[in-house]
């Protein structure tokens, strides 16, 4: 088991290095740097001025060395201005004595760089945004997983029954409704003051405000989460992921219900309720565990869509902003987080599968 985890972690680190290098390469292509130079320096720079600006600000060296600097494996660049004798460098903050500055500053030292658009340390921005997204994802997962497991188990316990057919159709419909469709439908139906249910309910005096739910989650960031402002984003995310987990649970449950030991239990006269709850359920939940862990990367896309749709300034929103504003360091940090989430969930799903399933033993 130890060797397995070690090997998996090794592959994971290699994958992370490759992926971050790809992102680093794409964000540090010359046209990107040129745009950065022109926005930071002067919009009317000539080509030579752009090159010299880039050289002065540490974007000049070979790509692989700059990647090493960003990782923190290679000492950060320093440069002495010939005219003034002033020393600038990657690790030398404004107003810092060059002698005190560390030689390396990068990912490994916990220094993610500086966001050129927000004018703040990337670490500060990412931290707060991630917390907001974590709340959203936590709620979404809390709704999605139990609901999906319930639907899947109910559908799979009597394969082919009417209950199975209706729940399966529901799961298929939910996988066919991406977030930007269900979000739009929910907003129109429940959060619009001119259409859907809200005007009707307001007229009857059943709700106090003008709408049943709030179509924007902006207030959830400042005033705290309430059912009123957070129900729609959470449902929107949960609905799309739910169908897939439910279908996997159903398939797994249906397979377990045809197993020999279930038949034995039934012939012994165990009640159906006990068969489902005590004999089938635990074995049926092994396969969905993997699926649930692998849903995290999917959820990431969903989070980006929902945060954009509901104006919630979390991690996904930050990523969209960073990508469209050419904010290189912030985008790199976002991609690190995204890649990290994907890889860690893959690792957990592999290890968890081995732990949960007694039939698999890895030497």
């Amino acid at each position: 088991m130890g060797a397995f985890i070690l090997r998996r972690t090794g592959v994971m680190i290699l994958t992370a290095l490759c992926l971050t290098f790809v992102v680093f390469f794409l964000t540090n292509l010359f046209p990107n740097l040129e745009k950065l130079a022109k926005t930071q320096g002067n919009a009317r720079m000539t080509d030579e001025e752009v090159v010299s600006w880039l050289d002065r600000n540490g974007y000049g060296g070979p790509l692989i060395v700059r990647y090493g600097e960003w990782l923190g494996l290679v000492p950060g660049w320093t440069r002495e201005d010939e005219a003034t004798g002033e020393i600038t460098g990657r690790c030398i903050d404004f107003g810092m004595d060059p002698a005190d500055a560390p030689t390396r500053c990068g990912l490994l030292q916990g220094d993610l760089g500086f966001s050129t658009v927000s004018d703040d340390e990337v670490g500060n921005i990412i931290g707060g945004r991630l917390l907001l997204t974590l709340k959203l994802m936590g709620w979404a997962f809390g709704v999605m997983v139990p609901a999906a497991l319930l639907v899947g188990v109910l559908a799979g316990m009597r394969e082919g029954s009417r209950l199975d057919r209706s729940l399966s159709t529901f799961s298929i419909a939910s996988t066919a409704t991406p977030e930007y469709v269900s979000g739009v439908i929910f907003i129109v139906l429940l959060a619009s003051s001119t259409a859907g249910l809200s005007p009707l309910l307001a007229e009857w005096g059943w709700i106090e405000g003008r709408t049943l739910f709030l179509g924007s989650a902006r207030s959830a960031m400042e005033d705290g989460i309430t059912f009123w402002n957070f129900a729609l984003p959470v449902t929107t995310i949960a609905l799309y992921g739910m169908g897939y987990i439910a279908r996997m649970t159903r398939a797994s449950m249906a397979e377990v219900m045809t197993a020999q030991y279930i038949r034995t239990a039934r012939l012994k006269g165990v009640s159906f309720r006990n068969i489902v709850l005590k004999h089938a359920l635990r074995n049926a939940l092994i396969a969905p565990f993997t699926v649930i862990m692998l849903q995290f990367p999917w959820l990431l896309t969903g989070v980006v869509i929902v945060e954009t749709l509901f104006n919630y300034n979390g991690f996904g929103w930050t990523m969209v902003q960073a990508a469209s504003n050419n904010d290189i360091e912030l985008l790199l940090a976002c991609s690190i987080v995204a890649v990290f989430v994907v890889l860690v969930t893959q690792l957990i799903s592999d290890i968890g599968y081995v732990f949960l399933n007694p039939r698999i033993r890895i030497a």
Partner: protein
Amino acid sequence: MEPLTWSGSFGAFLNPLMLAAIVAFVILFLTNVVMTFAGMRSGDFEVNADGTLVYQRTPMDMVLTGMKYAVLLFVLCCIGYIIAGLTLPTIEQKGILGAMAQRLLPVWIALVVTFALSITFKRKLGLYGKLFDSPIGMAGFGLVMFWIFAAIFSGVFPLVPTHGAIDLISQMRNELPGTPLPNPDEGEYPYYLLGGDNLGRDVFSRVFFGAADVLKITPVATLFAFMVGITLGLPAGYFGGKLDTILTFIANLALAFPVILLFFLLVTPEIVAAGVPQYMSMILFLFPILFFVVLFNSRFHTDPTRRNILVGAAIAIGGVLYLSLISNPSDPDLPLLFRLWPEPFDIFDIAGNLLIVFVSVVFVNSPTVFRIVRGITLDVKTRDYVAAAQTRGEGPWYIMLWEILPNARGPLIVDFCLRIGYTTILLGTLGFFGLGVSPESPDWGSTINEGRRLLTIYPHPALPPALALMSLVLGLNLLADGLREESLKD
């Protein structure tokens, strides 16, 4: 002129009927749920002493029968709307629903013909015919065919849309469904059936032009993803070893890359200027040619003349298409490499953004296809007929492409249907973030993106494309489900 009503003159009769069907269904469904929790069951057959069977009806059965009839009534009402739309003489009498049904007349005819032919000859049509044994598969097939015909009758023969995709009338900005045009020209359709969007374009027409756009891109992109996945997945599963390790690692890399980040990176103007999507298309589009060359070569290498003709044709046709596809000599912004192909031979150009969308969608889908094909190959290569082919001395590529691949077609066809749906969703995601084909493109994702800004005040521009996308993907998923069920019965 007065704005149109939703259901026109026949609504007075059909609307209450439809409402009654819905209310009855909801009430009966709730009763059913309550009765299930109360422990009631459907009736059972009982054998009488004289050998006859008696079915004991319980209240549960009556509720279920009631639900069935409510659904039937609902469907009949829907057909009623269509027939009324086709038969009533004026647009005012037809109403919005009827007028839409009337515009869709070619689609209805095509659908009826397809279903009639397919059901008549279903025993001779193999797996496709078996689809008509499963109600779910049939529903899915109907939805998919509806959108395919709608796309054909909008994109190829513009019979369905009432106005142009980018014709705008500024007085019609954000107008509600059924609003008449301020001063229609002779022969112009006098209403915006589903209202106008924020620029004053007709929502109804744009949804159907969007269908043509979406259905032009997604099946082709999915096909390319399959060719890439198959060309790499077969050898990875068949040969195993180092090749498998390397290819699987690369596929896992691509899968671990967050889709949304990839899209944003690829679509950024600076990255496009550096030619990254072009280089990717250079690699990705090589695979289909490779696929066909290997396919023909492995089959006909014992018959050199035929082999030479087929392989030569594949290289010539594929090569010209490939070079015209990746290069665009008239675009001075591209790197030199993509401007070398002479202008007269450049049959077609793909607008920059379309190529990028295409490349990103293929790139995202092919690793998953690779994994599926690799898994199936690992399973199929242990079969006896593969061993027999190996004993005959067939080459590895012949075995992969002519023994393993045809036997893997079942799961691949099912996955193809599902994947077109997924590709549609991806394309919509791109459009939703404003990264789509072009800013004016009527594709559904872009239209939803435009409509969402004023969503709480004017919901009508965003809702139709959203429902359209949902119904197409739902149809594809149901179709895949039906195909899977029917192919498992063999």
